[in-house]
């Protein structure tokens, strides 16, 4: 995995690259990531992952928190539908992610920034490819930089000195 210059895909990156926060289920996708490791499958160092027991534990607050705190994308990965270790947790994740994407789209967050994918414990390559694909998607979309959005305080036109505000 040679060093990637992300500014080629989107000049807004400058010398940094995408930061993706991952939520991996303990039984399938976290193990798939482990397998990618033991198999030495290279992938970009864009993913910072969190282990949860099941994608059913995925709380949309986590994604919103991560985006608010500087992440450029969120990747939730679980067991394939029908193969959840807790039977159906991944279906709940599927629904939550669908609704979360719709909601955040209204706030101007591109839905592709939040992705849900599956990888069984045996699918180290699926995991690797998913991270690569997601990295490319985010790289093309550019940085999210929510800091810029929330630190906005500028008034529209020059305001009078604070002391001069009249209340006539």
């Amino acid at each position, binding site marked *: 995995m040679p060093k990637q210059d992300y500014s080629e895909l989107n000049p807004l990156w400058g010398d940094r690259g995408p930061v993706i926060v991952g939520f991996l289920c303990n039984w399938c996708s976290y193990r798939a990531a482990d397998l990618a490791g033991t198999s030495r499958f290279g992938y970009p160092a864009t993913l910072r992952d969190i282990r949860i027991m099941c994608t059913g534990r995925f*709380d*949309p*607050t986590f994604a*919103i*928190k991560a*985006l*608010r705190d500087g992440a450029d994308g969120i990747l939730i990965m679980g067991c394939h*539908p029908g193969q959840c270790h807790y039977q159906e947790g991944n*279906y*709940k994740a*599927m*629904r*939550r992610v*669908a*609704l*979360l*994407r*719709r*909601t*955040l*789209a*209204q*706030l*101007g*967050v*591109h*839905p*592709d920034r939040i*992705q*849900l*994918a599956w990888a069984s414990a045996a699918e180290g390559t699926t995991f690797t490819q998913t991270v690569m694909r997601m990295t490319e*998607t985010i790289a093309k979309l550019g940085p*999210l930089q*929510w800091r*810029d*959005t*929330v630190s*906005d*305080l*500028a*008034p*529209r*036109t*020059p*305001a*009078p000195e*604070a002391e*001069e*505000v*009249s*209340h006539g």
Partner: protein
Amino acid sequence: MAENGKPKLALYWAASCGGCEISVLAIHEKILDVAEAFDIVFWPCVMDFKVSDVEALEDGEIDVCLFNGAIRTDENAHMAHLLRRKSKVMVAYGSCAMEGCMPGLANFYDRERIMQFVYHDSPSTDNPDGVEPQTRTEVPEGELTLPGFWNTVRTLDQIVPVEYFIPGCPPEAKWTEAAINAIISGELPPPGSVIGMDVTVCDECPRERSEKKITRFYRPYEIIPDPDICLLDQGLFCAGIATRAGCGALCPQVNMGCRGCYGPNEGVVDGGARLISAIASVIDAKTPEEIDAVLDTLPDPAGYFYRFTLARSLMERTRLERQNGHKVARPLEEVPRLDPALKE
């Protein structure tokens, strides 16, 4: 403390509808106790005060300030800072001050779009010269000024430190009363507290609830709901499941889903996220197509989930991008449709 030994009370109205001012009076005859107990030093809505009267006070001279309304303009911010400086205890009174409420919905847009709509595009606008308000205007008599209009609506505690929060749009009289009583008696909860309950509206709602399985949503005009069964069970969006109790479940009791004005429950970081998670969890669908079909019956999810709390939510507002040195909101319609390949 005034010379007469009464604590000094200030009430102020920033970006809000005025309902909170009226709600203060909804404590009925108790208002006389207030007048009895407090020395009211500033209440522009009710009595004749000038900002200079406040400025003339010592820092920290006001014992309690009930501040309602969000921060939308330079003037709102200025008054927030001024009153903060002069007050020992600052109370964010009502939904606007606490979480942004309706004014906070402007955070779905930016200043440009709001001005464009209000002064040009609105069907009721009559502005043939296309005039827009300016912060400074030269007239023969001299210069007129107006406070600057912000791109983003803020809650009070995003601008100044706040000791207490009283939720509600407007707050129910009993909570105002409880707050006043607490202040009078001096039995105050720890700073940062919300004066209210720590359960949700369901706790006060008399409707019968069962296990949830939503196959589609209805908009209020589409069905006449059964008056005894949980509205959500009937497919009507109700924010009560994730909304702090305290109102007595007023809306559900008149066959209308809870709007969510008391904001999220105690300890919740983002009320909208709680609704997304809970509502999505109980949708009865297992494939992306089925899920989409159900969600298609719930238009404007962000509007539903962040109706009162957008300004206070983690994201705070819709995304701004730099364009020619200005920050502008990305218009909603420019958000691309989901790539079908990525839907799963």
